[in-house]
């Protein structure tokens, strides 16, 4: 026993046992700290870089096309001899396809979430949720061809005059693609509602459905709203399905049964072409990209606001 005390430098105090600063350790610590900071900085700098490129190229673009024309023109023909730059043409395509997608994803996702959180037993839930999330892992190009080759022909049986490319079929499939995100996030939000709240409702003689609709859904509202906003962001930003199945023809339309280009599918189209750098046609994709960024930004801010406004502290 005594011997242990007689050997202070036995590896436990490798620094010599004195209460001095450990230079090596401090160096290691600050090295790690810098590494972590660098990792965080990369993502922030990337975002800043994207914004910088979008804004600077767009400034060039708006130096040649007045902002008012950009917002009010009803044609989008940047590559024609008689060029028009009405972004509303693309915005309408994005809006219509997103609304179709949301009309599918929000009700379906919410119903699935209510079922999984309030009705399904644990076995069903443990099988259904991973399967559902698998659906979110399917590449969107596959969804795109599914829309073009399966859904459009099926829809054409019901509506014989539906064209081969349409916002409707692309939007429907996009909705199905988004369902897992809405369902999964909404289910998380509803499961976070404490059991004591449900017991309070059951204790009043309420049924499962009444409890789910009148207590759990309102209590989880901030989470549900967040999942819907995420759905909107995904729908607005979705590219491949629309490029494949919606037809990339710019047209100002609010009719889902027509083909149209969206902001994203236009960017794909132009980015794949061989336009010279610095040409006006080339710069349009940055103006379109900036528009897309602003739209998603607005929805993200809306989502944050909804979360704060309706946050319940149980």
């Amino acid at each position: 026993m005594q011997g242990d005390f007689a050997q202070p430098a036995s590896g436990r105090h490798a620094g010599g046992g004195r209460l001095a600063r450990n230079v090596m350790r401090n160096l290691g610590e600050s090295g790690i700290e810098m590494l972590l900071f660098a990792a965080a900085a990369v993502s922030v700098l990337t975002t800043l870089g994207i914004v910088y490129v979008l804004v600077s190229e767009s400034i060039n673009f708006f130096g040649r096309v007045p902002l008012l024309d950009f917002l009010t023109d009803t044609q989008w023909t940047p590559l024609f001899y008689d060029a028009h730059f009405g972004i509303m043409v693309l915005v309408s395509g994005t809006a219509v396809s997103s609304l179709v997608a949301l009309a599918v994803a929000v009700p379906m996702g919410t119903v699935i979430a209510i079922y999984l959180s309030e009705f399904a037993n644990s076995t069903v839930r443990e099988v259904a949720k991973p399967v559902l999330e698998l659906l979110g892992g399917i590449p969107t190009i596959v969804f795109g061809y599914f829309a073009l080759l399966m859904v459009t022909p099926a829809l054409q049986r019901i509506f014989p005059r539906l064209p081969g490319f349409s916002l409707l079929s692309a939007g429907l499939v996009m909705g199905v693609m988004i369902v897992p995100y809405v369902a999964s996030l909404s289910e998380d939000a509803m499961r976070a509602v404490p059991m004591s709240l449900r017991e309070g409702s059951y204790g009043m003689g309420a049924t499962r459905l009444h409890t789910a609709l009148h207590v759990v859904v309102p209590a989880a509202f901030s989470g549900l709203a967040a999942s819907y906003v995420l759905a909107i962001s995904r729908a607005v930003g979705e590219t491949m399905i629309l490029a494949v199945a919606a037809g990339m023809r710019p047209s100002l339309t609010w009719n889902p049964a027509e083909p149209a280009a969206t902001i994203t599918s236009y960017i794909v189209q132009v980015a794949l072409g061989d336009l010279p750098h610095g040409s006006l046609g080339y710069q349009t994709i940055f103006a379109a990209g900036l528009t897309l960024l602003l739209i998603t930004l607005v929805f993200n801010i809306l989502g944050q606001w909804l979360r704060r406004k309706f946050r319940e502290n149980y």
Partner: protein
Amino acid sequence: MIDMPIQESAPLKAEARGLSFHYGEVRALKNIDMPIRDKKVTALIGPSGCGKSTYLRCFNRMHDLYPGNRYEGEIRFYPDDANLLAPEIDPIEVRMRIGMVFQKPNPFPKSIYENVAYGLRVRGESNKRALDDKIEQALRGAALWDEVKDRLGELASRLSGGQQQRLCIARALATDPELLLFDEPTSALDPIATGAIEELIHELKKRVAILIVTHNMQQAARVSDYTAYMYLGEMIEFGKTDEIFIKPQDKRTEDYITGRMG
């Protein structure tokens, strides 16, 4: 021993007979017999984990919400003289007649008004005038009316903890329950709010039978007419509250009450 003859004129509201309860394989309640008298307060005391909350939650079939639970024996409910635990009895019907107030105030994420209206709406009441009347009555009954009458549209979560608990009591009262279950209703409240709830219980027992779980023996002594001491899922002793507290028959009850255990 439980053989305490109770010469009492108050009629029975409910009575546990040979009640046992299982959480899966675990037997949480063992063969409990206990009368619940109408318009009286019956308190359940005992150390944590002794099964008092489990016992309370048998009365409104709360255990039905979770899989793997099993009741044995019966709880007779009067004047129907029906067994609340019988499989053919609909738990929703049971909960329509037996109200519950929980340990932590659990107001719904709705307005004060809608919280109290909840049970009435569940029962299909939609007449605005009838709702207004019953909600005022219930809030008065819970001694909350004067504090909230000008802000019925506000979210219930804006109320203080004690007010929230009285709101939960009003919510339970709105539907005219015949038996009220209180599961440690003051454990999350400060002494002043606790005093208000205890006073309220005194008022409420003029109208309704009350069964209350409490881990506070002084509270049991203050509010109840009858007290049951439970330990490890068994009911050790049951009797009039003053008798239990002054001269308990069982050594274990005495140890608990005098603070030598638990």
